[in-house]
């Protein structure tokens, strides 16, 4: 049929991007094959790797349940009770996302120099990552049909029982999704754990890489890490099941009744207040203290230079990733099918790979086959595209879906050429979504540390890498301006996520 012909160049482009996104996985597989089973055995099955896996496992097993408890409790307070200042607490609950994880641990290390190991790692990780659970859980709570809870009460359930037997099970999808996100972050995070000297698989890879950039040892631990990621993805699919918890029926949902806290209001207030103090107060106070100690002298030209380089890199990466994702996003809306689903899966999986693995793969592949590309901007940007491809897809898909093909046809029927119709209708309607995609990716790049450390050409200093270099020299004062600038540049992300969670809740 002629109708599918125009898709061919788009499919080819999307397929190329999909192939490119398979590079990290292919690299791991290829190295495993190349070094041979004996070497794999000696590199992987040794006590050191066992320790790392166990440490990472404990980290996941402690951080995720704690984050679930904090996020669900806080979401319930802000969405379902008459707690004073509910909107303020809701904002404060997601603002920690504006503070990069490694800045969280920098703040805590400055405040409590003895913070170390698993306990410290879990503590800071919960503070830095629980918003990833709070956002979906709060949105899901807003979407739940209160009539269902009324029905449970009319069937004789006390309020506490209603929460555990009716509300909590309906939050399962949100909890699974948020937990997966946190789990993947825990696997891939380098800065947070390196700062408080807790060894995970990711920190071990960076350490290995820094001693020799092309060591099979690093690649093998990378293989273990990727296996963990895939295991986590599979586990989430298994736990989530193919449930459908959406509202049944068409009537407009009545807003939920708010639980009266009464005389408990003041003691309950301590909870979000303490949390806000730990997640925002501590970083702001320590940053403030370092800034005050440093005075004007620490705001030197290097800070300005790093801001400039970060913005340029972030925008270039954002635009590139959005352009790379566009064909796939268009296909997934306009021409869904089996091939499209496979290509789309390639686009999405790569985003859940740790930055260390992506960077490792790109470095090793270029060193071996494309040496001129090694230590170039192009390679760094390619790394960003891979890491943030799913983010770029999200905004694009939604906005292309808002420009149905019928509108294009209507434009053609009114005398426009197909090309004009695409330009005047589809692109115009998809533009805001594309801009959102660019912004989302750019904000991600602003705070990206690991891959930037490994891929950046010498002389390139982003806010994150400068910050990292200075804190490694224990120059906490000089590092403060970089941290402040990262937080300032990330604040829009928080606004965006807040607005988006409101919108998905239909408000």
């Amino acid at each position, binding site marked *: 049929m002629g109708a599918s012909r125009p898709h061919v160049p788009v499919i080819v482009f999307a397929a190329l991007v999909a192939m490119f996104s398979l590079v990290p996985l292919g690299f791991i597989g290829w190295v495993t094959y190349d070094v041979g089973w004996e070497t794999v055995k000696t590199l992987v099955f040794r006590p050191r790797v066992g320790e790392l896996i166990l440490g990472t496992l404990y980290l996941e097993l402690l951080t995720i349940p704690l984050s679930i408890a904090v996020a669900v409790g806080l979401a319930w307070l802000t969405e379902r009770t008459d707690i004073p200042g509910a909107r303020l607490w809701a904002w404060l609950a997601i603002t920690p996302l504006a503070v990069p994880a490694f800045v969280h641990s920098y703040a805590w290390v400055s405040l409590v120099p003895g913070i170390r190991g698993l306990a410290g790692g879990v503590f800071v990780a919960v503070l830095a990552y629980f918003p990833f659970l709070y956002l979906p859980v709060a949105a899901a709570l807003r979407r739940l*049909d209160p009539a*269902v809870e009324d029905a449970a009460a009319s069937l004789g359930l006390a309020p506490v029982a209603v929460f555990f*037997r009716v509300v909590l099970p309906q939050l399962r999808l949100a909890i699974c999704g948020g937990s997966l996100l946190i789990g993947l972050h825990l696997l891939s995070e380098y800065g947070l754990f390196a700062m408080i000297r807790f060894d995970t698989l990711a920190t071990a890879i960076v350490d290995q890489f820094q001693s020799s950039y092309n060591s099979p040892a690093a690649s093998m631990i990378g293989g273990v890490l990727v296996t963990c990621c895939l295991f986590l993805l599979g586990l989430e699919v298994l736990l989530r099941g193919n449930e459908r918890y959406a509202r049944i029926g068409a009537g407009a949902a009545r807003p939920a009744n708010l639980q009266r806290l009464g005389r408990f209001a003041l003691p309950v207030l301590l909870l979000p207040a303490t949390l806000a103090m730990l997640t925002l107060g501590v970083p702001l106070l320590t940053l403030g203290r370092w800034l005050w100690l440093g005075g004007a002298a620490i705001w030197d030209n290097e800070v300005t230079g790093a801001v400039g380089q970060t913005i340029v890199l972030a925008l270039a990466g954002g635009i590139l990733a959005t352009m790379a994702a566009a064909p796939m996003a268009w296909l997934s809306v306009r021409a869904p099918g089996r091939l499209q689903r496979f290509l789309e899966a390639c686009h999405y999986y790569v985003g859940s790979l740790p930055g260390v693995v992506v960077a490792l793969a790109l470095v090793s592949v270029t060193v071996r086959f494309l040496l001129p590309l090694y230590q170039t901007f192009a390679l760094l940007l390619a790394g960003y595209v891979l890491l943030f491809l799913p983010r770029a897809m999200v905004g694009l898909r939604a906005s292309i879906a808002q420009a149905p093909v019928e509108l294009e046809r209507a434009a053609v029927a009114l005398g426009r050429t197909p090309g004009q119709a695409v330009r005047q209708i589809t692109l115009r309607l998809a533009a805001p979504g594309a801009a959102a995609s660019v912004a989302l990716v750019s904000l991600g790049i602003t705070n990206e540390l690991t891959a930037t450390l490994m891929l950046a050409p010498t002389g390139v200093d982003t806010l994150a890498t400068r910050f990292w270099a200075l804190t490694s020299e224990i120059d906490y004062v000089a590092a403060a301006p970089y941290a402040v600038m990262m937080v300032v540049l990330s604040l829009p992300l928080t606004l965006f996520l807040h607005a988006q969670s409101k919108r998905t809740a239909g408000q």
Partner: protein
Amino acid sequence: MTLLHLETISKRYGPVAALDGVSLSVEPDSRTAVVGPSGSGKSTLLRIIAGFEFPDRGIVRFDGKQFAEGPAGVPAHKRGIGIVSQDGALFPHLSVADNIAFGFARGAPDRARRIADLLDMVELDGAMATRRPHQLSGGQQQRVALARALGRRPQLMLLDEPFSALDTGLRETMRKAVVRVLQTAGITAILVTHDQTEALSFADQVAVLREGRLVQAGSPQTLYQHPRDPETARFLGDAVLLPATVTNGFADCALGRVPVESGHAGKAEIMLRPEQISIVVDGATPQEGGRVVDVQFGGAVCTVAVALPDIALPPILIKTSSIALPALGALVHLGVTGKAHVFA
């Protein structure tokens, strides 16, 4: 002996009075319909009876027990009143069987049998038990919601617009099924609806709410034939309202002399239901005539609009059969059967 007694219930949401001094009694084994336009406070009334909300003022008494006096009282989960809401409100994470058994006491020994009995009662196939709510049609969801509420063997069942999300044909089937089930089980029911036909055909007692006030309560026939005011008259069905002069049991109006059931004398507004007015062809009881200004063919029931001469009234709409429809512009006589209702 009343089962449920509501006494001057008032409830405000900020500046808006949702309910304003509503009193209503419900007899055991009866069916009451609370009907009113949207925003009339009928759902709030139901939620207060269920215990999801408490009135600002007023008393809810049920089976001799005080359920609410002002903003204090027994919470919903201790009332033992069943409710079926607009879209069933089934638990989306549980199967049909688990939904139905949700209200059972923990470890009930005859769980499986009771589920089967309840499914049977609401005329659903036993094979449905393993399905999930989203795999059911709207009507099936409502039946499961009814079975779930029946599982607690409540004395009173609240029905919150349970048929409004269904297709027209299904709506009637469901209404009849629900009446049958409740009657068999001997359960008192209160139906909240904005659909007056549904209210009239469902209930022994109809209560009309408007802007938070109870306008009138009584049997469907009484309300239909003797509404308290023109607004209620129009709300409960099509109505022909005419100015008239009433003397000695007769009203002189644009349709001539019409018998009334009222000792009222003097000028008044009277009401006739359209089915009381017919086009008289042979002139047996000729009344005043009019001119046919519109004929709408509608199959079994056709609508003829007749404009009366010399009177500034909108044309009178008459429902008639398709046999011998008058022609447009024809002069016809109008006959009246039964008595007209006088608004005092």
